[in-house]
């Protein structure tokens, strides 16, 4: 059974600081997704990572994928309050159907002034 583990589950950080969220998964996957969810809102797609060594950046967020280690990271640079949200990684098992994404429990990020 594929498991997706994120850590930390809760993260409180000050504006201007850097931090990394980790996403480990337990079996072979052919793609990994990062989503953002604001309280009471739906999920917003941030990144899709397809291959080993893939790196994508958008603003203060950078995601990377190491398929050999079965690890993805979401790095936050110089955090601002607007980044406060819950971040989910999701994995599609290799050979799985298009829709069968397995999500982690999410990392709730709170950025304080």
């Amino acid at each position, binding site marked *: 059974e594929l498991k997706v583990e994120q850590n930390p589950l809760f993260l409180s950080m000050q504006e201007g600081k850097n931090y990394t969220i980790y996403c480990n998964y337990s079996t072979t996957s052919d793609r990994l997704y990062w989503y953002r969810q604001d309280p009471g*809102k739906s999920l917003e797609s941030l990144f899709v990572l397809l291959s080993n060594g893939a790196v994508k950046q958008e603003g203060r967020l950078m995601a990377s994928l190491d398929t050999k280690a079965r690890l993805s990271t979401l790095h936050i640079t110089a955090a601002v309050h607007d980044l406060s949200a819950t971040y989910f990684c*999701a994995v599609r098992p290799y050979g799985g159907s298009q829709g069968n994404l397995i999500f982690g*429990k999410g990392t709730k990020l709170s950025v304080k002034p």
Partner: protein
Amino acid sequence: GAGVSQTPSNKVTEKGKYVELRCDPISGHTALYWYRQSLGQGPEFLIYFQGTGAADDSGLPNDRFFAVRPEGSVSTLKIQRTERGDSAVYLCASSLTFTRGVETQYFGPGTRLLVL
């Protein structure tokens, strides 16, 4: 343009009742997905449609859950004999079949179901 919409936004029902949750995908999206999200958890896959047919229903927890998409657009998730454990946010998402080989799923706002 319009995103994925879901109705109702909130539904309160009593144990044992039948409920229907509706999803309107983004126009032109052929793939549609249902997930369930419990408090403090990530979304859990339920079922995926490609066109009118269910391409993968492996996530449906039991035979009380059923979903249809008769015309390949709007989908309805149906839950019979609801139980308190069915309380959750039910999320719908849609996507093009292929977007440069990667099918980004666009999520709706969800329906919050509370079974008393």
